[in-house]
């Protein structure tokens, strides 16, 4: 596993953490005051910061740090999570997401915005909670400008490892004596009890490094407590037995001390006690259960280039010296000391375990809900492919058995039916693996709503329903873009300004509602707003101006509403930041159709609009109409077909040299011979002998596709043509039918757009594209 893979995992985790963060903040926003929610939010930011630190993503770390500090205020009830506070936090979550994306994909982030938010967060942390903050650190007068005492000095004693593998505890006396001037004594002193749990080591943390970091804060003395060290034969080499008691004098404050242990916080017991000046030495020597054994920390970690000098209090020197000598003489001394202490170890251990359990409980509570595993998408796809094979094979087998078994009552037939049942169940289960709740997309929409509300100055509330509705991951991935666009439209064009809303007797806050549900094997996503609805007069006028409809056209309300899906249609009076991108609802409709879906709008003037999208649950299978063209079997996606009809000779009209039109209920629709377009035959077939499929393509154009015959409707498994071949114009993909042969799936949009030009040009352009 190389660094990039680890980084990739980090970013995957970031995504989860960001989702957790956002949903937590939204819960808080809805009035949830469960401390666990705050904790979850805090943990999410904390984890991102931790990971980012490991990869040297400084921007991310610094922002996450400020964010975390403010969240900590909320966590410790110093800051009330009001709507205003949460607004800032939600924005911060957005910036954090941006920073994460930038760290992964490159690019740049809006520096001004993140700087502004950092200021706001800091103001929240400091400005609104000063009394609580200062109460928490009474002994940390940050204003004292004392010079920090450097403590890292080279240890003069070379560690010698004896035959038991124990290094003698070395000790530096360099700093003793005259060093204790008044400044040092005046510095605030802290007693720190640091007791790592085994998890600390399993997570790759190192007590030595933490203590070394701590030593940078000021003058300190370290005592290792080895009471819990069991005899050698009972020792678990991976368990944590030592704890350290540190006395430190520093002007950096308690926060600085705690921040040293930041990433080990969950895996150790840490007590930081602020002491009155002069209290230091008594406290440390009295509390110690045994003679202090000073440690040369460099002996613990051979990689450290800078050996750590340990500063001791003057009155402890003699005792310490003895201990050091004793330890150096033989390792058995240490073992004996440990042995004496081992009696107490058992009870201490269980106490520590209990504490650990209590602390981890909160963390586990959130994650224990549903155990999940992360699986490579390729593996799932491979499984889905194989199951697709199984289904096809089973169909082939059934077909041949039915052909050879005329009475149809043999046991083979019974077994086949069960096999069919089983394969269908397997297929459903495998498809369910790819299915994911739409929740992540809906959460992204929450952010979109916030941003647009900010820009437009409107007050918007997003209500989501059915966010656990599941749909294929590919569909989810492709859903975000059209949905974002629609949400933008709903807020930008749909909702009125607060004053206008109040004047219309509505609440100042507009509501945008996003719901998802399953309906007859498809997922239906509804986006509704309680805005002004579609201004039909305006839409109609615009359509007339743009030559989309005739000035005297008689259109139903529904038809007018659907005009907004035409290309280049925008009713916004001014080109705003949101809608001025040259893309309109036609793009939305096209992306939904590309997913095999349909989109509809219904609007009530004064009450808002409802967009309804119906999408297939998966892109791995497709409902198709199996047709015959020039002796070949083709599949036409069912979603594209509006109706099928048997053309009447009287309904066919020649138009120019090669074009033919078919009249359907008094409107004329171009006839397209699929066999001719795909070059399966040299001349156009006689339309009266075939069947016409009325299809609707992007841009709303209707065409009547001529095919020779309809074989039936079937669900087919989509197979890529590009994998071993190249893209074929006019063909979307391939599938395998029950007889084991490959059938091509027609790309209706490509065929329709190809039919717009002259057929000869079409062929040359298609050939050139191939």
């Amino acid at each position, binding site marked *: 596993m190389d660094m990039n893979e680890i980084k990739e995992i980090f970013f995957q985790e970031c995504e989860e953490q960001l989702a957790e963060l956002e949903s937590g903040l939204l819960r808080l926003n809805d009035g949830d005051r469960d401390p666990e929610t705050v904790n979850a939010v805090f943990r999410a930011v904390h984890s991102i910061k931790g990971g980012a630190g490991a990869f040297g993503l400084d921007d991310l770390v610094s922002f996450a740090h400020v964010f975390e500090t403010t969240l900590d205020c909320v966590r410790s009830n110093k800051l009330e999570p009001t709507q205003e506070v949460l607004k800032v936090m939600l924005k911060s979550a957005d910036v954090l997401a941006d920073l994460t994306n930038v760290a992964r994909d490159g690019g740049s982030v809006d520096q001004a915005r993140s700087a502004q938010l950092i200021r706001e967060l800091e103001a929240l942390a400091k400005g609104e909670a000063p009394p609580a903050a200062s109460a928490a650190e009474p002994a940390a007068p940050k204003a004292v400008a004392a010079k920090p005492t450097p403590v890292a000095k080279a240890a003069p004693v070379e560690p010698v490892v004896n035959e038991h593998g124990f290094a003698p505890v070395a000790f530096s006396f360099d700093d003793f004596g005259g060093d204790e001037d008044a400044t040092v004594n005046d510095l605030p002193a802290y007693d720190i009890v640091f007791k790592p749990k085994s998890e600390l080591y399993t997570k790759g943390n190192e007590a030595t490094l933490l203590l070394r970091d701590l030593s940078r804060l000021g003058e300190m003395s370290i005592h290792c407590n080895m009471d819990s060290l069991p005899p050698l034969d009972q020792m678990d080499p991976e368990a944590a037995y030592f704890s350290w008691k540190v006395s430190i004098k520093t002007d950096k404050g308690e926060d600085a001390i705690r921040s040293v242990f930041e990433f080990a916080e969950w895996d150790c017991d840490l007590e930081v006690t602020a002491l009155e000046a002069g209290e230091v030495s008594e406290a440390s020597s009295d509390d110690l259960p045994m003679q202090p054994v000073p440690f040369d920390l460099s002996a613990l970690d051979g990689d450290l280039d800078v050996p750590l000098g340990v500063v001791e209090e003057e009155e402890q020197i003699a005792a310490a010296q003895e201990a050091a000598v004793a330890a150096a003489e033989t390792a058995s001394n240490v073992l004996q000391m440990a042995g004496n202490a081992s009696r107490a170890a058992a009870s201490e251990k269980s106490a520590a375990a209990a504490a650990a359990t209590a602390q981890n409980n909160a963390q586990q509570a959130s994650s224990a809900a549903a155990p999940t595993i992360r699986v490579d998408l390729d593996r799932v796809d491979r499984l889905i*492919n*194989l199951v*697709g*094979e199984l289904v*096809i094979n089973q169909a082939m087998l059934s077909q041949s058995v039915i052909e050879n078994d005329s009475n149809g009552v043999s046991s083979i037939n019974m077994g086949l039916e069960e096999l069919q049942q089983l394969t269908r169940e397997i297929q459903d289960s495998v498809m369910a693996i790819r299915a994911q709740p739409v929740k992540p997309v809906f959460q992204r929409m929450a952010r979109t709503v916030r941003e647009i509300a900010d820009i437009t100055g409107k007050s918007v509330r997003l209500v989501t329903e059915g966010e656990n509705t599941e749909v294929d991951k590919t569909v989810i991935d492709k859903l975000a873009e059209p949905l974002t666009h629609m949400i933008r439209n709903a807020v930008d064009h749909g909702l009125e300004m607060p004053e206008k809303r109040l004047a219309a007797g509505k609440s100042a806050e507009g509501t945008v509602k996003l719901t998802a549900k399953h309906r007859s094997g498809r997922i239906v996503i509804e986006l509704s707003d309680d805005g002004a609805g579609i201004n039909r007069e305006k839409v109609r006028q615009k359509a007339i101006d743009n030559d989309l409809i005739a000035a005297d056209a008689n259109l139903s309300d529904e038809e007018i509403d659907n005009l907004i899906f035409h290309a280049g249609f925008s009713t916004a009076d001014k080109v705003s930041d949101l809608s001025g991108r040259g893309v309109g609802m036609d793009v939305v409709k096209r992306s939904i159709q590309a997913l095999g879906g349909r989109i509809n709008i219904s609007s009530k003037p004064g009450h808002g609009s409802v967009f309804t999208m119906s999408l297939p649950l998966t892109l791995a299978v497709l409902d198709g109409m199996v047709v015959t063209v020039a002796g*070949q*079997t083709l599949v036409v996606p069912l979603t594209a077909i509006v109706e099928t009809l048997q053309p009447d000779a009287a309904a066919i009209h020649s138009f120019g040299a090669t074009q033919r039109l078919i009249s359907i209920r008094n409107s004329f629709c171009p006839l397209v011979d699929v066999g001719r377009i*795909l*070059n*399966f035959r040299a001349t156009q077939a006689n339309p009266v002998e075939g069947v016409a499929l009325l299809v609707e393509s992007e841009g709303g154009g209707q065409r009547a596709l001529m095919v020779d015959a309809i074989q039936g409707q079937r669900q087919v498994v989509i*197979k*890529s*043509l590009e*994998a*071993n*071949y*190249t893209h*074929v*114009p*006019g*063909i979307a993909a*391939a599938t*395998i039918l029950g007889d*084991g*042969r*490959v*059938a*091509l799936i027609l790309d209706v949009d490509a065929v329709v757009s190809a039919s717009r030009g002259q057929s000869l040009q079409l*062929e040359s352009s*298609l*050939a050139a594209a*191939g």
Partner: protein
Amino acid sequence: MTYLAKNLTNGGRELIAFRIGDQEFCVNVMSVREIRGWTPATPMPHAPRYVLGVINLRGAVLPIIDLSARLGMRPAEPTVRHVIIVTQVKDKVVGLLVEAVSDILTIKDEDIQPTPDMTSEFERTFARGILAIEGRMICLIELEAVFPHSESEAA
């Protein structure tokens, strides 16, 4: 395996030889995935003449190339006696329609003679060398030049 390994260490390589018309060709055995019988292919629209169409190879869509037409000879009229050599070049799997597989050869690199100094398009594009085996002449084919995708890249 040991047989193969021995030959490989001796600088040997294995080739699969097959017949098209009265000529013999061969490809490296390492790029051959399997050999299977002919099944009718689904024709592809707008495909070059030598692409017979696609077949179902255990769920994958496998394009079939009429090697005879590809090499500029008479297009094949596939019968049940024809075989498809399923080959892999780079990340694509393609089937080659040939008349019959004739032999598996173990040769050394020095057995491969350079193609004679002629200027027809066929040999420049597809032939990597020729072999003289028991009085027969076998042409070693460069698979990458055969596949349509590499052709479209070149165009």
